[in-house]
């Protein structure tokens, strides 16, 4: 394979085309992404609480040092006692199908919509 050169000027055109495809895809996908309506909180895969995204609220599962919040139609983990804080660092989620997960506490925060069809 040694005969190939590292870079040709026309590579820039190809890179341009690839980025164009990405931009077109971005706007092509956008209409299919629906905002969610409800935030579900799952413990061990079972829904333990459903919060309406249209109402600001906060929730903490019984006996756990974890706090959830719904604000401006978005939901998030406010705080958690887990060591890695991946759940808190996920930040706000509001699109249908998006999830924030806290593996140490076996908790999942999931955005659900009106219908249950998988998006895309």
């Amino acid at each position: 394979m040694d005969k190939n050169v590292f870079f040709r000027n026309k590579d820039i055109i190809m890179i341009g085309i690839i980025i164009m495809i990405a931009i077109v895809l971005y706007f092509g996908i956008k209409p299919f992404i629906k905002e969610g309506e409800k935030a579900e909180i799952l413990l061990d895969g079972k829904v333990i609480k459903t919060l309406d995204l249209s109402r600001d609220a906060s929730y903490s599962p019984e006996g756990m040092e974890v706090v959830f919040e719904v604000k401006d139609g978005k939901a998030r983990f406010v705080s958690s006692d887990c060591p890695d804080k991946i759940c808190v660092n996920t930040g706000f989620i509001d699109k249908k199908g998006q999830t924030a997960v806290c593996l140490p506490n076996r908790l999942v925060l999931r955005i659900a919509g009106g219908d249950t069809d998988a998006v895309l």
Partner: protein
Amino acid sequence: MNRTKYITYMAMLLTLTIVLSIFESMLPSFTAIPGVKLGLANIVVMFTLFFIGRKYAFALNIAKGIFVLITRGAVAGILSLCGGMLSILVIIFLHSIFKERISYLLLSISGAIAHNIGQIMAVSVMLNAYAYMYLPVLIVSGVVMGSITGILLKTLLPVLSYPLKEANR
């Protein structure tokens, strides 16, 4: 190169792959988007693919997948394997079509994009169908990271290929 030297050389490349992927996981991630990574380990995989041989690149990728499987769990292992396999397959495919008319930089970029697409496909099958939302972002990230790893490969080439030259002398 005799058999013993070859085994040692491949072991060295595998070690390099693993060390690079551990090193990369230690770096703070500079974006909030999951999946946007440098892919430093791809440098070694690409080198193996370009200068040693296809089956060695596959072997390296499988070994790396097994390592990830053991250390970071089944999901991460499958993601690593899917990304790596698609990446190698796409590079081989493009190279066999365009031969010497395609540059290493483009091959590297295509490999990085394919790596991301492979992972998205695995994620959407295993975890949630929503992962396609990240496709545009991961294509752009593939262009950027593929360029970086391509340039790094070019820079590191003399060092990596030293044992090969030594053996052929």
